[in-house]
Each structure stands twice: as structure tokens, then as C-alpha cells.
């Protein structure tokens, strides 16, 4: 069952939203409506749903309505129209008390500029959510302590927030959101204010934590690299509308329109990543002289379903698939001749990563990366392209969009 469902959500800032809505129906642009009616379009007819345990990224340029959208999910901003369901309950019609319960029990929020309480210690900050739910001191401190340990801040409990670096402050922000153990984390550009290196570290940790916790995360960013790295799915926003929703691969390979294409292009143009930047070492390998049994054993040892075959010089000869090796071994064949597939998807090591994407999307096998002498230098599996794209951020700064 989907955890969060948003249906036809609208947010119009101003005193006469009905005027703006009328113009929206007529297909007028956000700017036109602003000049005509003085009403600012925050969110324009957004619908999507997020599954339990999913990390859903909302990406878009500054002013595209991301913060407004995420604030409609806990009604820090009141939507003008539409519905927001959390666990099947419509929160847009809830009274204050019911809404407060949802905020306390189900929603944790992390803010771009941390928003820590400067007059409270790290521990008291982390315990805030529990404190207002009137847990007794011992219990809330225990839980806050656990949350702080989870984000690697053991030993900092009694410091004040301003004694911590930005990265550590945001860990406190994360601990504060995690302490009351909500199902859903709302993260509004949570890492955008951090230095690139710290940011990468936080992203990695969030991914790690997410493996353990399995929360439903709605993560806002203006950074495509971050979106690709963190998101199970990505929604791209423009002028308050969602222009495309898809997995990172779908967004990269099938941009829905020019806007998305430009977004994706921008990122690619900013870096000259080639196949050799994202390839992995081609181990284990099979020699031409090996038989099907050796092939099977190697694949089993390494949990692979295929293995590349080279000659003594390291020149690529082909690939062997597990099921065919099994059949050959059962028939008692001693050589690889009958099962060696020579039609291996191959690229040279200086192929730009962008050009790899269509090939890799079509192919079930890993790509073989060859040098000019056809020697096997490495292999590329699906995930490593995206990881490579995202990983570039730590080295070269972000594509500032």
C-alpha cells in the first residue's frame, strides 16, 4: 500500500486563489498569472504516490515549488486544493489535534538550514519531539541518545549546537527527526547547505541508515547528482508542476521533455566522465583453456550469472552464461567452445558515460570496456554508471542548477 498519496494538490499564495485557479485552467503561465492577479502559484496540480520504504526525491530549480510541496505534506503550509493521504488518511481535512498527532507520530522533518534550537543542548534538541509528547525525562533521553548514536554523535550530547560544524549540526537535525521513530522523513534540501565533501558523506550515511531503518523518505534537492544517488524515484518540478516522475535511469535515458533533457544535459556537459571512470575491475576472469566446470565454480564463488573470457594476452574472447555452463558441464563437455558467446556488448575506455546509457539500458550483460588493443580493462554494470555520475560530485563540486 502506498504510504503517502498526493492528489491534485494546489497551492496559491495570495488572497484570491480562485482567480488564479481560473487562469490556470485556461492554461495561463505562472508569470502571466502573477502579473494579472498578484497571486503566486506555489503548487500546480501535483499528484503522485510514494510507497512504504521508498526514497522519493523531488527535484527542481529554485522557486519551482519544492519547499511548498513538502510543507503541504505536514500542513506547515495549507494547500489551496487537493488531498494528501498518509496511511490512507486524508490529512487536509483533519482538525488541529489529529494533525498534531500525525506530526508527532508519523512525520519527522529535516530542514535546509538545520533549524536547531540554539538555546538547547544537542541532546535536548534531539529529544524535542519526545519532550512535547510528554515522555518522561529518562525515556526521552534514552531514545534521543540512541538517535544521536545512530547518526554518529555519541559524546556530543551536552554541547550547544553552535559549537558544532555544519555537518554535525545537520546530524543533530536528523537525530531530532529520527528520535520519535516516525515512519516518514521529510527532508527539505537537507544537505544543500553543506560543503561538497561533507554532503557526499551525509548522502552515503543516509543511504546506509535507510538500509537499516527502511523509512519512507521524501527528499528535496535542486541537485541532479544528489537525486540520482539517493532516489529510488525522482519527480522533476517546474513552476509548481511535476514534469516527470521516474527512476533515475528513466530520467536519464528518457527525458520526458526539453526541460528535463536540458537538466540532464547540463549535468553531463559539466563533466567528461568516460567508461574508464565508472568501470569495475573485471575479476574474476576465465581463460580460454578453462572448462565449463571451472567457469561454474568461479561464478558460484563470486555470485555471478556470467563471466568474461580472455586469452593469455588479456584480449577479450567472449562471455559465458551460468545456465549454459551448467548444461555443458552436465553433458560432460571439456571446453568452452560450444557455449562461448562472442557478441559481447563492448565499449572503448574513452567512451563518454552519456553514450553508455542507451547501451546499458538495453543489455542484460555487463558492458566490457576495452582499450585500443581489444584488451579487457574493466566491466560496467548498471548501477556503477549512476554511482559514478553521483560520485563525481564529491570530487568536482556540484552542477549548480
Amino acid at each position, binding site marked *: 500500500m502506498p504510504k503517502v498519496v498526493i492528489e491534485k494538490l494546489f497551492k496559491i499564495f495570495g488572497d484570491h486563489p480562485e482567480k488564479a485557479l481560473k487562469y490556470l485552467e485556461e492554461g495561463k503561465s505562472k508569470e502571466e498569472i502573477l502579473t494579472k492577479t498578484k497571486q503566486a502559484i506555489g503548487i500546480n496540480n501535483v499528484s503522485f504516490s510514494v510507497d512504504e520504504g521508498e526514497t522519493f526525491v523531488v527535484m527542481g530549480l529554485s522557486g519551482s515549488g519544492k519547499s511548498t510541496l513538502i*510543507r503541504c505534506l*505536514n500542513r*506547515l503550509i495549507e494547500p489551496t486544493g487537493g488531498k494528501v493521504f498518509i496511511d490512507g488518511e486524508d490529512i487536509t481535512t483533519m482538525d488541529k489535534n489529529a494533525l*498534531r*498527532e*500525525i*506530526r*508527532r507520530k508519523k*512525520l*519527522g*522533518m529535516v*530542514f535546509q*538550514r538545520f*533549524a*536547531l*534550537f*540554539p*538555546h538547547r543542548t544537542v541532546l535536548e534538541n534531539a529529544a*524535542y*519531539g519526545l*519532550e*512535547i*509528547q510528554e515522555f518522561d525525562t529518562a525515556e526521552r533521553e534514552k531514545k534521543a541518545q540512541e538517535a544521536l548514536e545512530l547518526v554518529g554523535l555519541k559524546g556530543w550530547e551536552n554541547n550547544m549546537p553552535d559549537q558544532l560544524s555544519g555537518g554535525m549540526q545537520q546530524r543533530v537535525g536528523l537525530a*531530532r527527526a529520527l528520535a*520519535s521513530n516516525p515512519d516518514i522523513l*521529510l527532508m527539505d534540501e537537507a544537505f544543500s547547505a553543506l560543503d561538497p565533501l561533507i554532503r557526499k558523506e551525509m548522502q552515503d550515511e543516509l543511504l546506509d541508515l535507510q538500509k537499516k531503518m527502511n523509512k519512507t523518505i521524501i527528499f528535496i534537492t535542486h541537485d541532479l547528482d544528489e537525486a540520482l544517488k539517493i532516489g529510488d524515484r525522482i519527480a522533476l518540478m517546474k513552476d509548481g508542476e511535476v514534469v516527470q516522475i521516474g527512476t533515475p535511469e528513466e530520467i536519464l535515458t528518457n527525458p520526458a521533455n526539453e526541460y528535463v533533457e536540458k537538466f540532464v544535459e547540463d549535468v553531463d556537459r559539466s563533466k567528461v566522465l568516460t567508461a574508464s571512470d565508472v568501470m569495475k575491475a573485471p575479476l574474476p576472469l576465465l581463460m580460454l583453456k578453462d572448462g565449463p566446470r571451472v567457469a561454474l565454480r568461479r561464478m558460484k564463488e563470486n555470485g555471478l550469472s556470467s563471466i568474461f573470457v580472455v586469452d593469455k594476452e588479456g584480449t577479450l574472447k567472449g562471455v559465458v552464461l551460468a545456465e549454459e555452463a551448467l548444461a555443458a558441464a552436465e553433458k560432460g563437455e571439456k571446453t568452452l567452445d560450444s557455449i562461448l558467446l562472442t557478441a559481447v556488448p563492448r565499449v572503448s575506455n574513452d567512451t563518454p558515460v552519456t553514450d553508455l546509457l542507451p547501451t546499458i539500458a538495453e543489455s542484460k550483460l555487463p558492458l566490457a570496456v576495452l582499450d585500443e588493443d581489444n584488451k579487457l580493462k574493466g566491466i560496467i554494470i548498471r548501477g556503477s554508471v549512476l554511482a559514478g555520475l553521483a560520485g563525481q560530485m564529491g570530487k568536482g563540486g556540484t552542477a549548480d542548477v
Partner: protein
Amino acid sequence: MSDIFKPVTDIMQTKIPIGSWVEGFIFFLRDNLETFFDNLTEGIDTVIDGMVDLLLFIPSPLLILAFAGLAWFLSGRRIALFTLLGLSLIFNLGLWGATMETLSLVTVATSISFLFGMPLGILTARNKMANNIITPLLDFMQTMPAFVYLIPAIMLLDIGVVSATFATVIFSMPPTIRLTSLGIRQVPEELIEAAEAFGSTPRQKLFKVQLPMAMPTIMAGINQSIMLALSMVVIAAMIGAGGLGGLVLRAISRLKVGMGFESGLGVVILAIILDRITQSLGKRNKKNT
């Protein structure tokens, strides 16, 4: 020609009876709330008298040391030393009793300012309508010449220390209200969002986030209220406040320069001590909270 304007000038020459309205209002208050004002007078009288009695009961050298110790604890060595020397000088000049009377009046008046001013400040910060009513009222209270407050104070409360306290409270309360409101409104929007996102009730938001964060600003308001209260001592003495203000007033009526200067010096010393101590109270708050 002049006939055309006659109706206009006639209207303009008919005096609007603002004065009578105010008089009527004060008379109404006096006649209808007599017992209330009597009880109020008695209550405040008892508190101030009790405080003066207590301060005069403690041997003055001990009290001077106690004040210096407090100053040390709150604001450090320099202020402590100043307190020690300043109060000793006051004692030496024979102003001890008058100073304790003034201190009591200022303390009680400021406490009342605080008691009413802080809730009003909170209300102003949170409620737009309250803000629209209270803000111009505060401007009015602060710009109306302080002497004017003396008249209704006497009418409602009779001459004496209580009506002096009343006038002092009216005159000194605005900064507490204003700065409480300002302090709360200055809390960054994102912290309010954070408090709300985690499900705070409005009360929890106020007591756990807004007030603690506004504390340094509120303390600055209280500091200003104290200073305004001290600046009222001479005016307050005109309706029976006594204390240092009373001495200054007597010096004026007898044209005694020396006595006037000495009593004035007493006010200055008291002002400096109270100012520095309350200021550092605000700073401590900033650091510790």
C-alpha cells in the same frame, strides 16, 4: 464673503469636550470601583512598606556586602566593586533610608510592569488585532508628559506611595511590552516551523522555543523599564513617593544645591548598579539558555 464660512468656523469653534470625557471616565472608575482601588492601595502599600522595613531591618553594612556579592555573582568584579563603593557613599551621605525607599518603589513598580507587560507583549506578538490596539496605546503612554498621569493617580488612589507607584508603572511599562513582543517576533521563522513540524501545541511553542529565545530581548526591555522608573522618582515624589526623589524635591523648593546634588548622585548610583546588573542578566541568558 465671511458668511459662507460662518457655519464652518462655528463648528470649528465648538470645543470638543475631550477633557470632560476623560474626567467622566475617571470619576466613573472612582465611583464604581472604589473598593477595588482601596484594596489595591492597601495591598501595594503593604508590599512596599514591608520591603522598606526589611531592607532597613538588615544592618546596612551587611546589606551593602550582600548587594556587592550579588553584583559579583551576576556581573563580575568591576560592578561588584562599584556597588560596594557606591552604596557605601550613599550610606555615608546619609541617604540610606531614602535610597531603600526608592529601591523598593522601583522594584515593586517594575515587577508590576513585568507582570502585566510580559503577557501583553506576548499577546501583541501573537495577535494582530491586539497589536493594532496596543501599539498606538504604547506610543500614547510614552509621549504623554509623565506629569499628566499624576492627576488620575491621585484621584483614584489618593496621594501617597501607591499612586506614585501607579504613575511609575504606567510610565515604565511600554518597553517591557514592546521588547517582549519584538523578542518573540524575532525568533527565526524556521525555528517556528521546526517547533510546529514536530507537533508542538501553541503553548509548547511559546514556552519551549519563543520565550527562551526572546529572553535576552525581554531582559533588555526590563532594563529599560527600570531606568524609566528611576527617571520618574522626582515626579513620583510630587505625589508622595518620598525616597531620593523626595529629597531632590525638597532641595528644589529650598534651593539647596548641595543637597540636591547629593540626592541626585544617589539616584545615579542606584541607576548604574541596577542597569549593569540587569544588563548582564540578559547576557547570561543569551549564553546559557
